[in-house]
């Protein structure tokens, strides 16, 4: 290569020629682009219905749901007078009587409007125990006005507790970082800095790490099982390959719920796997395969195998066996030929399969719920819990947002290393 490098003397001429050629090329490219523009618009028009459908049924709902993670107007809308009264408060100690009076007036308004419960719930999410205090105060304020209302407020110790007013103040801004921070086990401290929550309350970072660990383990397991199988399928006669492909795909066409249920039948304490292990004498006692990490990874690996295998297989099919033979004939040992000729070519398929499996695993819900134990629940299980059981959709949105960011970042890294156009999915 180095022999072709131009010498020092040639440089100026070459540079001039190159710039002229560049100008030509540019104008040609521009003309081509203009000509293609119409075509492109037409094809875009054809794709428009799909794009609109995607935006309406996928993009917009996701954005709306995720916006709940940072946009929570409940407290600000419920407490307009308090918001105004707290505008100039420095957050130290207790605010003045005007803030107490404003809160009393707001609480009475909320009772009249029937929104006191929503306010109580929203405050309770930030300050456990606030719910009943708000409702109790609302009941006390029922027949109190002016000075009496102020005294009623002061008679409830909750409103004079050190954490109450800062929480209200942070809640009066409609944009909040509370849920996103909570999703990372962080919180604001009294001095306005960000700190970790106490270890006994920290959970999500651990669950995120667990989710990534399980996803990585499953990806690795599918690769170890899938790669040799894909190689075999790609290199056996066509008829046998078709049978093997169907064998791989058959479970793929079964509902994920059914497959997961089947695994519980196999893995349970008095199930087939334990019977078998006892029978051949590998295990001396029945193993706890259900509700365990091992069971979870086994079941997920089974479900994910086709996703890893198919991209690898589709790439392997395009590599003629003669290439390896050519490498042998040039003196390469089998392993060297495999490593230097075969692997680089199947690499895009391997990456595509692994990426697909890894990202799908990050969102697993049913399998961990049914087969995983208490300490095998993945982040989706927590999101589902906040959506269905706690009715705290803000927290669910925050966790989803963090998961989405991690997933996109990971996808970005993959794309950077490999280039998106080299990912061969099928």
């Amino acid at each position: 290569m180095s022999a072709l490098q131009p010498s020092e003397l040639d440089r100026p001429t070459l540079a001039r020629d190159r710039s002229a050629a560049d100008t030509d090329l540019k104008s040609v490219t521009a003309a081509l682009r203009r000509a293609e523009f119409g075509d492109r618009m037409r094809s875009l028009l054809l794709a428009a219905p799909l794009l609109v459908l995607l935006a309406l049924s996928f993009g917009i709902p996701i954005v709306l749901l995720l916006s709940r993670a940072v946009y929570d107007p409940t407290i600000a809308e419920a407490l307009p007078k308090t918001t105004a009264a707290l505008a100039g408060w420095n957050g130290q100690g207790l605010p003045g009587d005007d803030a107490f009076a404003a809160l009393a007036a707001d609480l009475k308004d909320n009772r009249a409007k029937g929104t006191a419960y929503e306010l109580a719930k929203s405050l309770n999410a930030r300050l456990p125990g606030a719910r009943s205090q708000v409702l109790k105060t609302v009941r006390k304020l029922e027949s109190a006005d002016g000075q009496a209302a102020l005294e009623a407020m002061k008679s409830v110790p909750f409103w004079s507790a050190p954490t109450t007013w800062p929480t209200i103040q942070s809640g009066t801004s409609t944009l909040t970082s509370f849920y996103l921070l909570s999703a990372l086990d962080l919180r604001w401290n009294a001095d306005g800095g960000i700190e970790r929550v106490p270890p006994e309350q920290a959970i999500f970072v651990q669950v995120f790490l667990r989710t990534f660990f399980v996803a990585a383990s499953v990806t690795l397991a599918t690769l170890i099982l899938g790669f040799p199988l894909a190689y075999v399928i790609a290199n056996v006669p066509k008829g046998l390959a078709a049978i093997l492909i169907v064998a791989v795909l058959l479970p793929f066409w079964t509902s994920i719920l059914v497959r997961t249920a089947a695994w519980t039948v196999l893995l349970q304490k008095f199930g087939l796997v334990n019977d078998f292990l006892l029978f051949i004498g590998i295990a001396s006692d029945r193993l706890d395969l259900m509700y365990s990490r091992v069971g979870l990874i086994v079941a997920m690996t089974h479900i994910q195998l086709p996703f890893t295998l198919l991209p690898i297989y589709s790439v392997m099919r395009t590599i003629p066996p003669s290439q390896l033979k050519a490498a042998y004939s040039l003196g390469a040992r089998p392993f060297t030929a495999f490593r230097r000729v075969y692997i680089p070519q199947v690499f895009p398929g391997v990456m595509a399969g692994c990426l697909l499996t890894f990202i799908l695993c990050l969102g697993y819900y049913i399998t961990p719920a049914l087969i995983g134990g208490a300490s095998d629940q993945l982040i989706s299980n927590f999101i589902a819990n906040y959506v269905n059981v706690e009715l705290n959709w803000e927290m669910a949105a925050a966790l989803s947002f963090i998961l989405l960011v991690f997933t996109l970042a990971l996808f970005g890294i993959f794309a950077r290393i490999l280039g998106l156009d080299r990912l061969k999915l099928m």
Partner: protein
Amino acid sequence: MTQIRTRLLALAAATACMTIAGAAFADELSIMASGGAWQDAQRKAWFEPFAKETGAKILEQEYLGDLGKVKAMVETGNVPIDLVTVETATVLQGCDAGILERLDYAKIGPRDKFIEGSALDCGVGLDAYGDILAYDPTVLKEAPTSVLDLFDTTKFPGKRAMRKFPAQNLEWALMADGVAPADVYKVLATPEGVDRAFKKLDTIKKDIVWWDAGAQPAQLLASQEVVMTTAWNGRIQNAIDSDKKPFKIVWNNQILEYDMIAIPKGARNPELAYKYLAYISQPENNAKLASFITYGPVRTDAASFVAADALPKLPNAPDHLAGAYLVADTEFWGDYGEDLVKRFNAWLAQ
């Protein structure tokens, strides 16, 4: 397996909810309950007699007891159900979130005739059930005398099953640690109290098998995976009566709770729903459920209507309230539930 079946049924129910959304007629009442033996009992005690008496058609649906779906229905303004059975803590949640109707007791019955805590703003009690301890005397030679024997691993070695949920377990942990039943919720409202409860649970953590569906405790006992389990009394009684299991129930230190029924906001047929609530809240009807599942009535004046053979099996039968017992504090769980569930999950994962 039943857990999976329940979940499958729940999925089917969710699909049904969506397809059913079409037409609702004035004489159709759509009730969503949490399935199993309990829904069967409600059908025999209430659904069928009510349908016969009023000519209304009852459409049954099943779900897992989580209000997420109901919230989605209310937020989209398409509510194909008129009544939904819920746990007390869920009633408070749904009330706060504005997805359950505030009830007009004038249309149901005298509110002061309900056991305290069983007539809430957004939900009316259906029955009283007990969180109890169950064991198999053919396996466990020495009989436990209190639910708190869960924490005695020297006298009762072996695995014990407990519900994968902080409620009840934290209360029992505190009582086992010497807190008087009357003070349990006061102590649990303080951070030190919560620490104390978790510390007590720590002492048996490695011996616990967790259950989350109501049918699991009986299965775990039957398959001898555990030597004792906490459970809802009706499920164990059902295993004793129908499946002829030799199980025994320990009532001492039980926790009493109420099942509730509520009207979701925007229900299509609230008038008929109220009619149903009034029907099941009449003392003689309220007492009927006990003949089909051993859950007690919530009307204070219903005891005399309970069938004689059912009475001694109810959680609120006089004999079963003779020892120590605790009435679950709904307000407490409304306040601290979300926080404690999070802490509980963090603790489980440690």
